């Protein structure tokens, strides 16, 4: 297809320059599949736009596919339909004020984002966190991982055709929502972590609910396994679909289950452990094939491992404070704030100025979120606002890998592949 053909066929109603450059980039993209000759009497070559609003419920992702019949020759992704400028907002807020924004990034597992941000700030400002807070954070992170993988399971299997899985996954998620409601007061975007610890302790009620969930959930997982593991239809839809080779996976920058489904056992909980992950035992599930089925197995096994980690954490949960006592680094407890003058002054100073890392300090800290490596790079200028906060988001890199995976696939598999890679647009579009 010639250049002038694309520009004549594209008639944009808004953002004209943007659309023209996008289609031009599609035209210029390197083709790995043989092109047929220029004659196209049946009109089998076309450019398909899966626009920003489409039913595959993965947010606002726009795909532009150049098709030859049913085969995708080249694909281009257009993201930025959910961009807010969170990094610019961070330069104007104190570190604690920025917490709710981290919730809304990967909005399927908000607890992980909170912990990621808190550990990054604690690293640059050198804050000690008590033991009990570490274990509470681990329990929260693993519950968030289970919650995110449940939604992935529900939507991917619904996209593959089995619609009732969505309802079952949401039934399990409602139980998790009840637990989070009990812990932090909100169903999912809780902002429970604070710099220096957690906001409040787990009540006995909450611990009983978590124990109850952890006892009943493996049976549900077994039911899901029985339905899908030997299902001929599921296999045919997912085996050898969306293959990402081992060499290409690391090169293109995939992370999380996408990378582990292609052979690299790269998990930050093992690579650079944070929050007492070196004291609990768990395995890192990895597969070598790199297709959609491998990613499915990796995530299902991760859910099993999360249950195992939560059980160990509940056994090992030590007694003690849940936030550090240092008034310059963490909020005082509510008792102190209401009943003592220093407590009130410290609370005011923490809200007004907040924690001030040393001037010129910069550091990077990453955690293993459910989608992959979520890292924060903070540059401090000595005040309570960061000078630069960069979010290393896993979905951004997985979407880059998706652009590579889609070349050479069938157009009917697109939705299942997107489901298998599991992007979250709030995370990739910051």
């Amino acid at each position, binding site marked *: 297809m010639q250049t002038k053909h694309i520009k004549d066929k594209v008639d944009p109603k808004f953002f004209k320059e943007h659309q023209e450059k996008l289609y031009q980039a599609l035209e210029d993209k390197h083709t790995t599949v043989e092109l047929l000759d220029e004659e196209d009497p049946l009109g089998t070559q076309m450019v398909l736009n899966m626009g920003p609003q*489409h039913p595959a419920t993965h*947010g606002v992702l726009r795909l532009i596919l150049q098709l030859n019949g049913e085969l995708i020759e080249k694909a281009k992704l257009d993201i930025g339909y*959910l961009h807010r400028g969170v990094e610019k907002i961070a330069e104007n807020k104190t570190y604690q004020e920025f917490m*709710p924004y981290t919730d809304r990034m990967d*909005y*399927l597992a908000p607890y992980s984002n909170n912990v990621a941000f808190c550990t990054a700030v604690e690293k640059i400002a050198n804050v000690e966190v008590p033991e009990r807070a570490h274990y509470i954070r681990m329990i929260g992170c693993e519950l968030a991982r289970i919650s995110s993988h449940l939604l992935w399971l529900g939507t991917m299997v619904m996209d593959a055709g089995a619609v009732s899985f969505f*309802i079952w996954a949401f039934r399990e998620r*409602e139980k998790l929502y009840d637990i989070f409601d009990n812990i932090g007061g909100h169903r999912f975007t809780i902002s429970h972590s604070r710099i220096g610890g957690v906001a409040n302790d787990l009540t006995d009620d909450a611990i009983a609910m978590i124990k109850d969930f952890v006892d009943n959930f493996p049976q549900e997982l077994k039911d899901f396994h029985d339905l899908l593991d030997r299902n001929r239809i599921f296999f045919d839809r997912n085996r050898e679909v969306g293959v990402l080779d081992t060499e290409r996976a690391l090169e293109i920058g995939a992370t999380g289950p996408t990378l582990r489904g292609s052979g690299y056992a790269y998990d930050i909980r093992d690579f650079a452990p944070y929050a007492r992950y070196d004291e609990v035992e768990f395995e890192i599930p990895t597969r070598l094939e790199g297709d959609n089925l491998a990613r499915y197995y990796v995530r299902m096994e991760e859910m099993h491992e999360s249950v195992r980690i939560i059980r160990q954490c509940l056994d090992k949960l030590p007694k003690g404070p849940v936030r550090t006592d240092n008034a310059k680094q963490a909020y005082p407890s509510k008792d102190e704030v209401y009943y003592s003058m220093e407590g009130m002054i410290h609370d005011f100073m923490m809200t007004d100025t907040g924690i001030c890392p040393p001037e010129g300090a910069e550091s990077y800290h990453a955690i293993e979120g459910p989608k992959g490596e979520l890292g924060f790079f903070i540059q401090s200028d000595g005040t309570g606002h960061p000078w630069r906060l960069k979010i290393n988001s896993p979905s951004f890199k997985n979407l880059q890998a998706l652009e590579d995976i889609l070349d050479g696939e069938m157009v009917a598999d697109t939705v299942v592949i997107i489901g298998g890679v599991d992007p979250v647009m709030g995370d990739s579009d910051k």
Partner: protein
Amino acid sequence: MGIESSLGDGYLTTKIDALTNWARSNAAWPMPMGLACCAIEMMAFAGPKYDAARFGSEVMRFSPRQSDVMIVAGWVNYKMSHAIRRIWDQMPDPKWCIAMGACASTGGMHRCYGVVQGCDNFLPVDAYVSGCPPRPDALLHALMKIQDKIRTEHSVKLDT
């Protein structure tokens, strides 16, 4: 409904009105414009615990031509606003709009260059739901308010 307007303001027209309004309000199929975190609560609103189907929103129709209510869930970007407006224009009359969450109503906590401060800058909104994200019960309340609004509409009866 042109020919009935010649019948004027009588028993027949009000009863036809009541019938059409009853039918429309109990079958308000939503078109979920699920953009961000509120979309997850919207999925829970359609899920098993807070079932939207018992209110008549039986299916979430992703095609604008087949839906009545558009639920804007999540913050609206300048880049995305054009796409949303196009979809709104494609929806056939009668149509209503729910702005779900603080971000869709007023821009919410995102007061910055990328976010439109409220989707009512380019859409005619009928119900605003506050919350970040609002509980599914709150969204059900908004749906019920839209149903009340539908029941007081005039399609046949002359409004003089």
